[in-house]
């Protein structure tokens, strides 16, 4: 099996609280990265060496997140960064990432189930459709994997669904799939030295009218801060009183 594994990292920075916050890996993507690295390690052990490449679309600062990914076991990192990508909605983001993947032709693409800011969960499945590959979302366990197929268990509302897929496969993973490692000293050294490859619109061969604000079918027209939820009454007292008060509250709410 030719061995390249891809991890996508959320394109945007992840928080409104900016002071002192570095651009970090979106928490969901940590599980995707960890699963990719574990898969690589298993394959290497089985005599089928492979590599993990991390891809992110974002501003130049996103390089920090990519270095962090290398410290956690990724081999290479590519930053998709270009003025023309700014304002990309999920359609364009998945298109740009898909165009980058076409150059790499991986067997497996691991994505977090959603980003922490936009949290749409649409980009991963969108990439699979752009590149016409098999996909499975909300994966909680990879049950088996060989050169041709993967059996994956996905977490859905009422339980677990198991599906078998032909490679190449794009999967989005949920937190349950693993417990991400912390960076090793060697990883940290590698991250420091790593060269982050930068690809722009010309490298990907994307037409400008399919990228950024211009290519995006959706536009944000208004952003507002919702009113804060305020606390109500707070009761203190003996346990028995609290129980009575709670019971009365439930009665008022007509749940008992």
């Amino acid at each position, binding site marked *: 099996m030719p061995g390249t594994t891809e991890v996508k990292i959320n394109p*945007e920075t992840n928080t*409104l609280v*900016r002071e002192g916050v570095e651009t970090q890996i979106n928490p*969901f993507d940590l599980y995707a990265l960890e699963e990719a690295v574990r898969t690589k390690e298993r394959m290497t052990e089985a005599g089928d060496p492979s590599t993990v490449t991390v891809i992110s679309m974002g*501003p130049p600062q996103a390089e920090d997140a990519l270095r962090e990914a290398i410290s956690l076991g990724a081999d290479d990192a590519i930053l998709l960064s270009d*003025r023309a990508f700014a*304002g990309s*909605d*999920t*359609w364009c983001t*998945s298109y740009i990432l898909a165009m980058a993947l076409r150059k790499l032709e991986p067997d497996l693409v691991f994505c977090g189930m959603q980003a*922490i800011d936009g*949290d*749409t*969960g*649409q980009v991963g*499945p*969108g990439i*699979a*459709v*752009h590149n016409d590959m*098999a*996909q499975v979302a*909300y994966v909680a366990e990879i049950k088996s994997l060989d050169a041709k197929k993967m*059996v994956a268990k996905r*977490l*859905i509302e*009422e*339980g*677990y669904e198991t*599906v*078998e*897929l*032909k490679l190449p496969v794009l999967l989005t993973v*949920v*937190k349950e799939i693993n417990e991400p490692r912390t960076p090793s000293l060697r990883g940290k050294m590698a991250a420091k030295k790593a060269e982050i490859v930068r690809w722009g619109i010309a490298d990907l061969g994307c037409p400008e009218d399919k990228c*950024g*604000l*211009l290519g*995006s*079918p959706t536009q*944000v*027209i*208004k*952003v*507002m*801060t*919702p009113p804060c939820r305020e*606390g*109500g*009454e*707070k*009761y203190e007292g003996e*346990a028995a009183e*609290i*129980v009575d008060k*709670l*019971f009365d509250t*439930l009665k008022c709410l007509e749940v*008992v």
Partner: protein
Amino acid sequence: MSISVDASKCNGCTLCVKSCATNAIEVKDKLATIVLENCTMCGACVSACRFKAISIDIDKQPVENLDQYKEVWVFGEQREGKVAPVVYELINVGRDLAKARNTKLAVVILGSDLTAAVNDLASYPVDKVYVYEAPELATYDAERYCRVLTDVMRAHKPEIVLAGATTTGRSFMSGVAINLYTGLTADCTGLEIGEDGLLHQTRPAYGGNIMATILCKYTRPQMATVRHKVFPTSPKRCEGEAEIVRLEPKPTLFSSRSSFVEFVETVGEKVNLVDADIIVSGGRGLGAPEGFAVIRELADELNAAVGSSRAAVDAGWIPYAHQVGQTGKTVCPKLYIACGISGAVQHQVGMKSSDVIIAINKDPNAPIFDIATYGFVGDLYEVVPALTKKIRTMRGAPAETCVV
């Protein structure tokens, strides 16, 4: 496409700087300057500016006549013939949208052996039910679903398409929008037709810290996935009947690189977390996995689902499927009872839109009390079992609750 600051309107107040999540605005000599390299064109500054000094211009035109798109569609998600509860909520909001657009409301359903589901959907106030039945669609398959719905939408040209923001809706609708090169707004909590006749889609972002209103101006259909429990369930129809439109299956669309192996329902759960009207949740304050027995007893008594904070999941006390919060599920039940949950921001993100929040916690300063409708300071091990007992006693005494 460009972003610009009108120097005659900007007074350097820095409101835009505070609104920018990507450090892309600097104020120099009382004038906001955009650092293009950092700007993601998200538009947050445009709405933050009180002086209308910032604007983003896009030079864009529709590539086809958008008036040919009619009807509001609801995706009739079903599993083994059972319609997902969110569908009835979509019918309710879809009804209003169709009325505002003076067009028809339809449900489109894919699957196999759908007679009961179709009859059920037809008993709600929809004008049409599009039925696409084929044995190949008996179980959910992302590839097939995506290809079939794309084909149906190309043929019938709906103006608006709504689907539940469920694991199914969220995973395959994206591909449909990709195929049709149109917009899909995820997880909407507000939908209305604006004066411009467009669907104004409002959704939370950054964990609910901001609400963004999104338009899909130049392409159709306008597509949205919608959070469960945001809109009320539609009442049944009181008059008329739905037209049943049977769609001809096209076997060429059924190829897929994935195949269904099995579905295992989570055992022991009477109520699924996202559909529950009431959730009783436990956190670190339980102190031990056994604590969930106390939570579950109350939940059973209230016919509620059992939720959990991240701390309890990470401690291995309860499976991840129960986790509410930023890295778990977002829920909006009518009543959320948080027991021994301190209420970190990451937890609040997943539950703060619940109608009513009751918090039980030993620590009177726990942040959960800042958002709880009713806060109770006390030891959950003293309070919760006693409460369950009290409810049982009441129910055991029919004279008090039942008049018949």
